Each structure stands twice: as C-alpha cells, then as structure tokens.
C-alpha cells in the first residue's frame, strides 16, 4: 500500500482527488474553494492602508488561511515521507533546459534558479520576485486563480470562469514558449 502511495500518481487518480476538494469545502462549511483570496486577506489583515478594497471583515475568511497552512503541512508530509523523487520528464524539455544549465530535476522547482542566492541575480529576481508579483496582481484582477476559476468556477458552469481559464492558458503558453527561455538565457 505504502509503495503504491509513494509512486507518482497517474492523472486519473489525482485529478478526481483535486476535484473532490470542492464538495469537501462546501460540505464542511459552505466554503468556495479558491486560494488566491488569501493574498487579499493577508493584505486586509496586515496592511489595509485605508484602501477600500482591503476594508472588509477578513476575520470571517480565516478558514481559508487555515486551509493554506494545511497545504504547507500537507506538502511537507507528502514530499518528505510519501514520495520517491523520480519524475519522468519529457526528453525534449530536459534537453532544452540543459542548454540553460538546468540539470537538476529532482526537486519541484529547478534548484539552479530557485534558491536564496539567485535572488541577487537578474534571472532569479525575474523568476522569483517578478513572477510572484504577476501571480498576485493577475489573480486578483481576474477575480480568481486556477482553483477559484478553473476548478470551482468551471465546475459550477460559470462562463466567466471559462473565459478566465482560457486567459490563464493563453498567457502561460505565450510566456513559457517565448519569454521564459529568454529569462533562462540570462
């Protein structure tokens, strides 16, 4: 059993388990699955700065911060105790990444770029800091992220979530193919 769990799970096992999170949160307390809102709640709790967008009762939304804390704990447990770190990654991608000096693919992120000392290089700054900023700005502007729109919204047959998901994908295709290679070249 443990051996089975330790293997990477196929998409037809993990997909439904991700989807089942939607009814779990609804049944536990009428909560809509969506993680990017947490960034807003943290702003509202820590630096509302008289901005109307951050003046609401964030304490009503603490359940989502508990949920996020759980994800950190779940990530720790799964990575350290329930995984064998043998990803099978597309050969072509590995070859391309090798050209940019990315050869270690035993972590979830390429350790050559995502490390503390790379924060002092332009490449690291763009990948870690600017990348994060785009996520925070874009998700709020779009009113949701992959969990809020692509999974919850589309499950609830919301047309706007379908539009948002197409936009996520379009932006991702564009950047992954045209811009990310340029940044990695730096």
């Amino acid at each position: 059993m443990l051996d089975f769990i330790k293997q990477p799970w196929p998409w037809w096992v993990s997909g439904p388990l991700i989807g089942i999170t939607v009814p779990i949160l609804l049944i536990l307390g009428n909560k809509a699955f969506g993680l990017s809102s947490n960034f807003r709640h943290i702003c509202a709790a820590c630096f509302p700065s008289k901005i109307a967008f951050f003046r609401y009762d964030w304490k009503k939304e603490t359940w989502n911060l508990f949920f996020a804390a759980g994800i950190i704990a779940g990530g720790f447990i799964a990575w350290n105790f329930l995984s064998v770190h043998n990803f099978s990654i597309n050969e072509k991608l590995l070859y391309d990444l090798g050209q940019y000096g990315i050869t270690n693919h035993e972590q979830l992120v390429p350790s050559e770029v995502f490390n503390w000392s790379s924060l002092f290089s332009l490449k690291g700054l763009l990948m870690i800091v600017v990348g994060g900023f785009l996520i925070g700005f874009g998700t709020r502007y779009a009113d949701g992220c992959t969990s809020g729109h692509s999974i919850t919204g589309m499950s609830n047959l919301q047309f706007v979530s379908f539009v948002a998901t197409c936009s996520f994908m379009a932006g991702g295709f564009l950047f992954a193919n045209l811009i990310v290679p340029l940044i990695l070249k730096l």
Partner: protein
Amino acid sequence: MKNATIHIDETIKTEIGLKPNGVEKEASPGLRFYPNIKFFFAGIFFGLVLIKSEVISWFRIQEMFRLQSFHMFGVLGTAVLTGMLSIMLIKKLKIKTINKEEIFLLPKKFQKGNIYGGLIFGFGWAITGACPGPLFAQLGSGATVVLVTILSAIAGTWTYGLIREKLPH
C-alpha cells in the same frame, strides 16, 4: 443568527465572496481555533494530493505549456469533471453542510479584468511554475525561497488594490 448590523456595500460583499444580506445564516467562526481546524485538515489532504499529482512541479508546468505532456490536462480535466458532478449531486440531492445549512455557490460576474488579469496571472504561472495553491505546497516541500514568491504575490495583490480604480474592468 440575526443579520449582522454592520453595513457593507452589497456589491463589495459579493466581490469578496460573502453572502448578500438575508442569505447568511451561519455564524462565522472568525478567529476561533476549533471551528477552523477542520479546514486545516482539508488543506493537508489537498497539499498531499498536489504533491502526489506533481501538478506543482515547475517542470510539469513547462511541459504543459509546451504541449509536451498530457498529464496536466488530464488532471485539470478530471478535476473539473469531478467538481461538476459533485456540485450537480449537491444541488439535486439538496445535500446540506455538516451544520445542516443549505449549500450554495455565488455566481461570478464577468468583467474585462477576467481577461487582462487572467493573462497577467498566466505569465506568472509560466515563470514560477506555480499557481497560488501550489506555492504553499512548494514551500512545504522545503523550497524555502518560495516564501519570497508568496510575499511578492501579496505585494502584487496589494498593488492591484491600490490602483484598482484606474484599471479597465
């Protein structure tokens, strides 16, 4: 519970995902520990699945956007199908929450920001190889520098709040 007496603009309420006046029945758990702890455990479950499904791997995200693997599309597709079926069942069978409340999801309203913001988020997704949920799981897996990405995302959300009025919606 009686309706809250604090007046919040109805549109803002809907935007932040609260229920409009008259619909809200459940007392909010607020900052109390006990009523919130079940969501922590739900988070552990979701974090486990995120890691095991590898959808939070930077490499998988690059594969997806370069159309080099079906994995991510399979995960997203089956996740949406499962969510859709669950919501249909909840509505059809009138399943209630564990506190015997009626379950409902607020509709989301379309605005141009869904497209502009969506594209911007897509850029960030491709660069960091993570969306908001996975950022937390990556941090938990020991990629400590992702903490900077999360702080930066908070700064991004704050900046959006600051200049929101000036952006096309």
